[in-house]
């Protein structure tokens, strides 16, 4: 019996121990991830959060998994601008890149895309949540508002009195947040018919007041001005607080070989971007002298060749960066991914003797031989998806001395580049009648990029010839610099042929079977892109945020 009692005591003891379970054991705090309520009350937490704004480009795209939607967005602009083409259906690329019709060199035979409809019909057809990654409209929209939301949260956190920061450091953080808001509204306003202005500090609320894209651009410039106000509080050359904050905010792989912009350079970037906002949102035909002058004035104090600016890079071995192993414009064009390919229409825009051509472009051999870098031969009409999807050129990888294509090397601008500023100066000058002043800026870009071309300024070029020099230089000098689609749109190339759009003498690498030739050949055709000017608001937004009365139109 004593024995039994002993065990009973053990049992009872166990009961008491168990009874001691406290509710406090339920307060399991996530030990892996910071709670913003706590982390944003410290300098380091703010810096980590500011640096993390670009992590928001990694988004679980339906059907595609975690993807960099900034790279998708940049690629969309490049393929619609016909610098490169992308024949695959992932992320809707194939439909975004869907040229309506190609007229063959005989001038009679017209070959429509395999769907027989315009880009607008296709893209609007996919504007639903059920279309997943085929809804082209979601990427830039989502990226923009993700940036805005995180920037809003950051600004709200910076107003917290518990945060004790040096004035210059505080100004740097605020400038960073305003920059991303300005950048995001600029992109949204330059791409969508209308948008939302949302200053919610990250609680997840929004509003139904859709305003038209011009109003979004106004909001963009307003944020750039707020950014400038903060930057003006800092020594133009930067101080320790600025440099300390910026060395965290600007991710190392976005800083390779570029360095940190000083506050002065950053201020110039804002001016360049404001100039872009004006330039790309008006058809060139509608630009008034006053518009050109505004651009000239802004660009006069814009990025200078040699200035440092914000870029999107990759890490050397593909780790700890934002590419998710492949989603970067240079990687997509590079040998290992081969999603984008050099467009014949880009290559034809090189001037003869341009060193950039020698450095960057190789002619693809014809099957059965393949080239050294890509294990690829020239191809036409890939998988019968459209005549624009063929080329006999490839970009020489950076690893082999090129500038444009890579497996894990190189950067592309996030915003504007000094070359863009220079060419805006050129364009404004030319349109304001100062042809040689304008061409001087063209020459400046060419020499900056080691084109080794003869100067065109002061060679007596006509206005039309000067415009052509400018057009070519914007194509080549601003390759992968984010303006290709904006240019095609404002120059009227993407408009329907019926309203004067399209590109004559556009080189197309045609299948031999189509032109009665034993071999495939690049020949000049008429290409009717017929792309949308401004995109519809994605239905993914409208399903949960119906436009309030008085809202601007949300669909074409």
């Amino acid at each position: 019996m004593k024995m039994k009692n002993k065990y009973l005591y053990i049992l009872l003891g166990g009961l008491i121990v168990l009874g001691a379970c406290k509710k406090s054991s339920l307060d399991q705090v996530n030990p892996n991830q910071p709670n913003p309520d706590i982390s944003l009350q410290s300098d380091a937490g703010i810096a980590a959060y500011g640096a993390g704004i670009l992590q928001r480009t990694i988004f679980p795209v339906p059907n595609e998994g975690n993807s960099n939607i900034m790279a998708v967005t940049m690629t969309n602009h490049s393929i619609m601008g016909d610098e490169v083409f992308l024949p695959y259906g992932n992320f809707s690329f194939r439909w975004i890149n869907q040229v309506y019709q190609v007229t063959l060199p005989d001038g009679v035979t017209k070959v429509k895309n395999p769907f027989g409809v315009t880009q607008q019909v296709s893209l609007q057809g996919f504007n639903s949540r059920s279309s997943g990654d085929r809804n082209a409209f979601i990427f830039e929209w989502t990226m923009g508002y993700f940036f805005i939301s995180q920037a809003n949260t950051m600004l709200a956190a910076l107003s917290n009195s518990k945060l004790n920061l040096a004035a210059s450091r505080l100004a740097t953080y605020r400038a960073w947040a305003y920059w991303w808001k300005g950048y995001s509204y600029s992109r949204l306003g330059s791409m969508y018919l209308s948008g939302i202005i949302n200053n919610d500090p990250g609680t997840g609320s929004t509003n139904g007041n859709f305003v038209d894209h011009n109003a979004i651009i106004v909001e963009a410039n307003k944020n750039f001005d707020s950014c400038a106000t903060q930057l003006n509080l800092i020594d133009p050359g930067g101080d320790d607080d600025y440099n300390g904050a910026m060395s965290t905010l600007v991710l190392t792989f976005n800083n390779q070989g570029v360095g940190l912009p000083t506050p002065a350079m950053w201020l110039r970037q804002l001016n360049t971007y404001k100039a872009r906002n004006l330039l790309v949102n008006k058809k060139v035909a509608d630009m008034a002298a006053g518009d050109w002058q505004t651009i000239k004035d802004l660009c006069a104090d814009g990025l200078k060749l040699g200035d440092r600016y914000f870029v999107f890079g990759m890490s050397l071995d593909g780790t700890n960066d934002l590419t998710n192993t492949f989603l970067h414009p240079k990687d997509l064009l590079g040998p290992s991914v081969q999603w984008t390919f050099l467009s014949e229409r880009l290559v034809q825009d090189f001037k003869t003797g341009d060193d950039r051509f020698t450095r960057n472009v190789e002619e693809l051999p014809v099957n059965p031989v393949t080239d050294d870098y890509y294990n690829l031969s020239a191809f036409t009409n890939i998988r019968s998806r459209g005549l624009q999807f063929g080329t006999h050129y490839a970009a020489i990888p950076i690893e082999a001395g090129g500038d444009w294509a890579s497996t894990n090397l190189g950067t592309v601008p996030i915003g504007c580049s000094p070359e863009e500023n220079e060419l805006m100066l050129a364009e404004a000058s030319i349109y304001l009648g100062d042809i040689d002043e304008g061409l001087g800026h063209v020459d400046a870009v060419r020499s900056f990029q080691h084109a080794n071309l003869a100067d065109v300024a002061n060679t007596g070029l006509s206005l039309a010839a000067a415009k052509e020099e400018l057009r070519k230089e914007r194509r080549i000098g601003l390759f992968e610099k984010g303006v290709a689609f904006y240019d095609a749109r404002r120059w009227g190339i993407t408009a329907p042929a019926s309203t004067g759009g399209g590109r004559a003498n556009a080189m197309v690498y045609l299948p031999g079977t189509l032109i009665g030739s034993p071999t495939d050949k690049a020949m000049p055709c008429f290409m009717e892109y017929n792309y949308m000017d401004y995109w519809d608001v994605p239905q993914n937004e409208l399903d949960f945020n119906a436009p309030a009365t008085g809202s601007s139109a949300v669909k074409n």
Partner: protein
Amino acid sequence: MVISGLSLESTHTLTKNDIQMRKCLVLTILFMAFAYLSQAQNREVTGKVTDSTGIPISGASINIKGVRRGTSAGPDGTFRIQIPPGAVLVISSIGYDPQEVRPGGDNTVTVTLFQSNRSLSEVVVTGVGVATSRKRVPIEVSSLAGKDVAKSSIGSVEQALQGKIAGAQVQFTSGTPGSGANIILRGLNSLGESYPLIMVDGIEVSTLNGLDLSTVDRVEVVKGAAAGMLYGAQGANGVIQVFTKKGMHNKKPEVNLLSQASWGSILKGKNNQIAKYHSFVTDAEGYATQGGARIQPDEFGSWASPDLLDPSSDPTVVQNKPYKEKTYDHLKQAYRNASTYNNSVNVTGGGDRSDYAFTLSRYDEQNVLSNTYNRTSIAANVGFTLAPGLTFRNSVSTIFTNENLLSGDADISIGGTSSDRFGLFNSFPFINFMARDSATHHLVVSANQGDNTTKNPLSEAEWRTRTSSSNRIIENANLNYKFPKFLELDYKYGIELWNTDNFNYYLNQENAPQSNIVFWGQSKGGSILKSYNKLTRQNSLLSAYFRTDFEKDFHMDVPIRTTTQFTYDWRRTDESGQFAYGTVIPTFPPFNVSVAQNHTSGDGTYPGDPLGISTFVTYGYLLNQTIEYKDLIGISGGFRSDYSSAFGSGHTPFTFPRGTIFFRPTELMSISWLPEWKVRAAYGEAGIQPGTYDRQKALIVAQLGNVTTNSNSFQVPNPNLKVQVSKELEIGTDATFKTGWENFLPSINIAFSYWKHKNIDVLQLADLAASSGYTQKLDNLTTIDSKGIDFSLDASMLSVKDLQWDFGFRLGTTRSVATKINNGADVVNGIFTIKQGKPLGYFSYQAPLHSLDQLQEDGKTPYIAASDRANYEIVNGMVVDKTTYSVVMGNPGDQKEAGNAYPNFTASFINTFSYKKNLTLSFQWDWYHGNKIYNTVRQWLYRDRLSSDFDKPVTINGTPGAYVAYYASLYNSVAPSTFFVEDGSFLRLRDVSLTYNLSNGLHLKWAKNLSLTVAGRNLITVTHYSGLDPEATTTADSQGNPPNAYSGALKGADYFAVPNLRSYQASLRVGF
């Protein structure tokens, strides 16, 4: 002589006097009996107990009727007992109908016990809290004893359960070794995982996968909240409880050996998947060309893509050219025949106050693709009687697994998602995946020049080594004290320790052929990822049972028994991991993280693992009261209240109620053909917990460059998450019918249940407008209603002299409907949709037009203007444009219903024939009916005209032809379309086995049991499904990514999974 083990009582009402009289009488008789027994001449009876096949039943109980005395049969089924003259022996064993025997004059008896397929004498534990005789169980508890396990199942408990439990869908969706089964009990209760709570001897463990079958004595399954309520906030998906083998008091050691070997190859379906013909641009001799020149492999074995005849310029292009190039069967190149070996030894026995069971097993399985998986299990279950009423039992299983599988899968640990097996299947037939580089003799990595992102999975083994080894210990200690009266205290503590070491090494490929365009892993310089993961799952249960028997304990004249159960239940799961990761590995040894050019380390098992460390705590208490009146009627009611770190802001408990009733009319009536009939009803609620830290505000942590960054998740945080609640009503009946016929259909047992679930507060990741800065919010928004029936029938069909035929039938039907989802707005995830008012597993897509006058989704605008209709015709039920030869698709927004991924019912038919007790033939057919499959593989094969469909002519414009335009228009860039939704119903010969019992036939003295079995698994599949295996379906979207959430609600895509195997087994069982 077969006598039912159920005693029937007369129903006349007893008066108080009667009872007094009876008491006196009983006492007198007992006294007299005692006196008699102590004086009378006993005699010794020897005997043997066997089952219907002649196999001895070791441990069968032999009791003298009316006397508290007995013995048990030895390992060879024999027994020896002293009995008084005229005594009747009651012989019983779990799982068999008991028998009464009056020994004859020769003092020997031979008793054959017949398996009672759903023995009502059985005792069940799961879902009732306390061991209860099956005849008094108010809920449906299915069980599977070792003897019922299909002989073709090797090593796996999940395999053993397949088809055996009505209403339990146990589906292997991959033939890869070590893959667990997808288990759904009675439909879906949430949008997430449907996996039930798994218990081993009363203690929660992580998964059924990996538990060794040879350690298992029996398995009990309860399928819904009515029983799961006892397990509270984790019980809603039902419970599967495994009981490990135990020894027996006073039993000599018995040794059982099992040796099994299996040989299998993948199921390939009945159709050719790949087209015999092509439609490439060819040269004069018929060879495929690109740009006018014949294509041929380069020095690496990589091929250019041939130019395709373009149907947009000539719609009448047909696919009818035979390959001039040598072609390869890629499935044959990739998949070998794989062998599996399983050996186990099991020793059981016991002494006066102890019992033991030890099992050692070793399982080795080859993968059909490459490499192997093995498992060693050591299990011990020992029990001690420490003092009268006080028992201690300890059971421990240690499971070691090692595998070095390479499956061509992208490495999820570094962000890769889609499977590279894709490229193997979805490639031109002239590509030779065994081609080797002429200089280095390495297998080609990128075999198709136009498609460098797709690698040859067969080359992976040359550039990658990975291993994963784990030690899993399941320890379970139980102390139990039964007071002489009323009270029983029971304490269980269980701990599962599961440590896993992973090693993943990609060789430096800087000098590898093709490495400028393609390489394995993330870095051309190679990488090493070493990680260590540790899981600790603790479960502590203290229970008190207070039992009364009014007659016995209080000498009252009411035959009422009560049981009060109080349980305090605490569970805690800790998980943590660390990794070290290095990139750019030298080309010379050693190969480790330290020598890598760049290295990094962190919490979790891979860089960026969001849940590197986690702790989950939940506890609750249960109060349950049972009151039974004789065996006639019983009711129970109770509640369980749970706290959890994952819901209710960490402090608000949730309470789950329960009530049950059973009624046995057979207690009141005496019908010879209906010896047992019970009706039962139960209602209960149980929960499914949210994810460990789902309710907490958390920033995403990402290492970007040299900065650890924080950012908002795309999900808005929601601190107020509640537990998901499943409310179940189950009504059922169990009955035994006796026909009275001697040979044909002597008895039938049935169990029938109708069940209904209402699942409320189901977690949904609701979509948000992106302008809010978030695109999703997790919240308790959804309601799911499910209902169905479970039906089991077990019949002895034929019982003649030498032949015994038993038949079993299982049927489960289920339909789970999302009756409420947030805003009524469809949840869309890849190819899957959850639509309000529609069943889960719903397929709804853009569809080909089916009639010329079809209207668009607005219901008024015709797709084709009346004036244009002459340009179209109907081909195979679809509208085809006679000019382009293309099928006309409806608008992407015009979604058409295309069925459901879940079957209308699952059923199985199990037949066992025994001849002369020596030879047993059994076979089991499993049947899934009405489920649809999205055949993503087939759609991908349409991309490059590889599908064998392209060979089939259709008639357009009156002319038959295998028109490329027609088929190519259906590919639709992998946009989901109803066209690729196929009927996934199948009838599969799951198991067929033939066992010959040598010990009977050869009269072996040394072996108590010696049997040989040959068996086959998945030998025949009857299906209309055109893919390889209708069972090997996943949740992957068109690119092979798993959905972000709702993995439970989204099933039924065929995405390049390894098919299940068709296999043949031979096994030898020896017992001595």
